[in-house]
């Protein structure tokens, strides 16, 4: 199962809330791709995902940041 969240331009804690809501529903083996605009949002989402044992990959797409979370 794969989901994409566009959290660009949203201030804390909205990107994290959106990501968390999807993470809570995602079955094992699922992937969530989150787009954010700020490093602060990247750090928050990465921290939450890692604390739950998800694999996290980060890359940039223009000026935006793409975070890929795998359960």
């Amino acid at each position, binding site marked *: 199962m794969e989901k994409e969240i566009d959290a660009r*331009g*949203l201030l*804390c*804690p909205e990107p994290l809330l959106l990501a*968390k809501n999807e993470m809570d529903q995602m079955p094992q083996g699922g992937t969530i791709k989150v787009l954010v*605009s*700020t490093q602060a949002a990247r*750090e928050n989402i990465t*921290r939450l995902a890692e604390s739950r044992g998800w694999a996290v990959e980060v890359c940039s797409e223009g000026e935006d940041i793409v975070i890929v979370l795998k359960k």
Partner: protein
Amino acid sequence: MKKGKVILAGGVLGLLAPLLVKLGNPPNMGVCIACFLRDITGALGLHRTSTVQYLRPEILGLVLGAFLSAAATREFRAMGGSSAFTRFTLAFLAMLGMLVFLGCPVRTVLRLAGGDLNALVGLVGLVCGVAVGTWFLSRGFSLGRAVPQNSVSGYIFPAAVIGLLLLLIFSPPFIFFSQQGPGSMHAPTAISLGAGLLVGILAQRSRLCMVGGIRDFILFRDTYLLSGFLAVLVAALAGNLALGYFKPGFAGQPIAHTDGLWNFLGMALAGWAAVLLGGCPLRQLVAAGEGNTDCAVTVLGFIAGAAVAHNFGLAAGPKGVPVAGQVAVLLGLLFVLFLSVSHLRR
């Protein structure tokens, strides 16, 4: 250690605060974003309370430190367009609450670290306000998306701050500087500016936010930002004990009053509005330095709130809270409730 950065930022802020008091800043007010923005408002003549007028270099340094740090790490980015006027309004109301309590979330902690137990009541109010705002956030409150803007838009705010710095250095006659009262009490300019720069850099790197600390703990049981909050408290307490500034009690505390109900409600209003804005006044200054023009508008909202609070007799003083200030806080709470409900996404 993952929390190292934010603990360092909070610890440095907490230690600098009593040192700035030692060097001349008002007691328990080494750093206060609300009070210092109010002083800047007065220095520009936007309010005429002659005891609270000074172009506080700590604020100017904070913004410039955040700007330099963001520019150096390529995090500077002009963004804006997320309900700018609603943010202005929320900031305006938050400032009314903070000037009824007499301090921002940072000074709440600094007052507590100086033994001012009225600040404990304010802190409970702040936590309650943040909790209510967080409840709305978790149910879909949103001020909408910001979009990338022309980079010049992001430079206007830091440039304006450089303008204020020049006004401080050259002190032209149209700028007001208090001759007595808290506004006349200040550490040497270069030291205040340096302290602001340092805190600005550390806060930008660590995302230090007092309101965010409480919010993230409630929402996610995440203690990252909360550790920064606690670091401010511990470091300021240590500094105050070492310098002999720790005097526990309710009565006779510096630049404070003992009216518990309004200390509670003032900070509840501030906390609620701030959490809807995405962070405390310190964080807003830092984000404005990073190029976020919505946060720059938010800072203007704080300034407008400070001007109105003093021009219309809403701000508290050591003797207590004027009736007009009490009415303003109640109306402010009602209006923030209206904005909270009206901006629910679902």
